[in-house]
């Protein structure tokens, strides 16, 4: 499987307070890759580096087979980008914005743009600056899709939108992806939204990628275990222990990653008893993952 986005040993610094360190990231071609992380974790910076909007201090970025930022113009012709903040000329009307955008993209699909214009119910005579937040989100999505991109890079595309608009935008994106087999790289705070649509997930915190796994493995691999009689040290565990808390008596709650059912046999080998295995949803798994990452001395 080839990768639509490949990042190797990327290093970037923004001022004294923030930096990306030795970032490695792979977005498989045709995947819908959810990019999760708390505010300030480096998601938007990574996206801007991927698009060549920022220049890295070190490392290599390859997008659709071309090196970034050297080949940025050629790559950007095949990438649809929806940024976090509205960025278009506020004085241009919807129609004028479409004309402006069409002039720069060789594969601009006018029928698709007209179709989405009707589907999103956008008034073509209204200036971009006078559109509501939801309408701006729809227009930016329309522009990204009408370019017929091979890769969609979406930075919190539905953040702050009401549920109806969010559904419209996501539905248009999924329609496009199913037709074109395009790759989607989407960052969002809305974890449950990503849970529904993504097949890969990457989690950032403090400028580092904590994990990058297929969604199914992430969802199924993180569990809360109720354990009794466990020794203080759990050396040789076949799974990763993210958190370990005493409940009462000798009982403990463990949050573990990379769990498989046959690993239950491990507890007998350390003289403990596994009483219960509880599924965690993506949000709980995400929170536990972040907590364990921050508790590690090396993460600071």
């Amino acid at each position, binding site marked *: 499987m080839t990768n639509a986005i490949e990042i190797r040993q990327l290093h970037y610094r923004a001022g004294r307070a923030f930096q990306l360190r030795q970032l490695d990231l792979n977005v498989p071609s045709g995947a819908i890759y959810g990019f999760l992380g708390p505010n300030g974790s480096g998601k938007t910076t990574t996206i801007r580096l991927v*698009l*060549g*909007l920022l220049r890295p201090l070190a490392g290599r970025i390859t997008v659709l087979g071309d090196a970034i930022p050297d080949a940025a*113009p*050629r*790559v*950007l*012709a095949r990438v649809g*980008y929806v*940024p976090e*903040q*509205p*960025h*278009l*000329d*506020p*004085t*241009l009307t919807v129609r*004028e914005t479409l*004309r*402006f955008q069409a*002039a*720069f*993209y060789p594969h601009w699909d006018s029928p698709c743009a007209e179709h989405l214009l009707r589907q999103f119910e956008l008034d073509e005579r209204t200036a971009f600056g006078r559109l509501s937040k939801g309408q701006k989100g729809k227009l930016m999505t329309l522009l990204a899709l009408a370019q017929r991109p091979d890769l969609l890079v979406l930075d919190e595309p539905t953040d702050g939108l009401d549920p109806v608009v969010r559904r419209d935008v996501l539905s248009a994106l999924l329609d496009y992806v199913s037709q074109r087999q395009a790759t989607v790289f989407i960052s969002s705070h809305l974890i449950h939204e990503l849970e529904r649509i993504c097949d890969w997930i990457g989690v950032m915190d403090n400028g580092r990628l904590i994990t990058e796994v297929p969604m199914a493995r992430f969802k199924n691999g993180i569990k809360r275990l109720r354990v009794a009689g466990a020794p203080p040290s759990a050396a040789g565990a076949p799974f990763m222990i993210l958190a370990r808390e005493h409940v009462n008596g000798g009982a403990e709650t463990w949050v573990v990653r990379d769990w498989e059912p046959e690993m239950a046999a491990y507890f007998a080998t350390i003289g403990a008893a596994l009483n219960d295995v509880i599924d965690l949803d993506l949000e709980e798994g995400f929170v536990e993952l972040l907590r364990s990452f921050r508790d590690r001395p090396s993460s600071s």
Partner: protein
Amino acid sequence: MFRVMLYSQWKWTRLIVALGSIAAFALPLVSVQGAARADSNPLQAGELLQAVQSWGTLYPVLAAALGLLVAIATWAPDHRGRHVHALSLPLPRWRYVLLRFGAGATLLAAPIVAVSAGALLPGALAIRFALAVLVAYAVFFAVSAGTARTAGIILGLIGSVILVQIIAGVANVDLDLFGRVQVLVLNWPGPLAIFTGRWMLIDV
């Protein structure tokens, strides 16, 4: 591409260009109005030339103002969007800058033509006005293309010159930095020499 860029900039600069063109058309006419008075005669030629010359100082002022305002308006949509849209377009940065510059320069043709029309004949005055407008536009275009850091560096340089001059004055050192800078910048072949000298003893 150039057409949509020109249209986008027209929306930002149309008021500046329209008012600038009216002023540019009116200026040559207003400056020679004394010649049309009924009581004027050959003996008052000196006074007429003096009046015309005093109006002439407005040409470089108008050229500088047009250059400044159009340059600021040229970058305004990009600054508002923090350059994200411009940088995410599939073309090299130098080409985008060239498109923006070209569109602004094209819009400045209107006031240049207006001066030419107001002066009745296209000639040295219109050419000089055109050069002054384009020099001002190019300088302010370059400055306003920069980030806050660039503006800080420029202000820092100006501040340093002022500080050195003040210190030299306090220490009673014979140093005229302002004079030297003025000579370097405003006298031929300085970059802003086009703005100085007599404007009105030509063409009208």
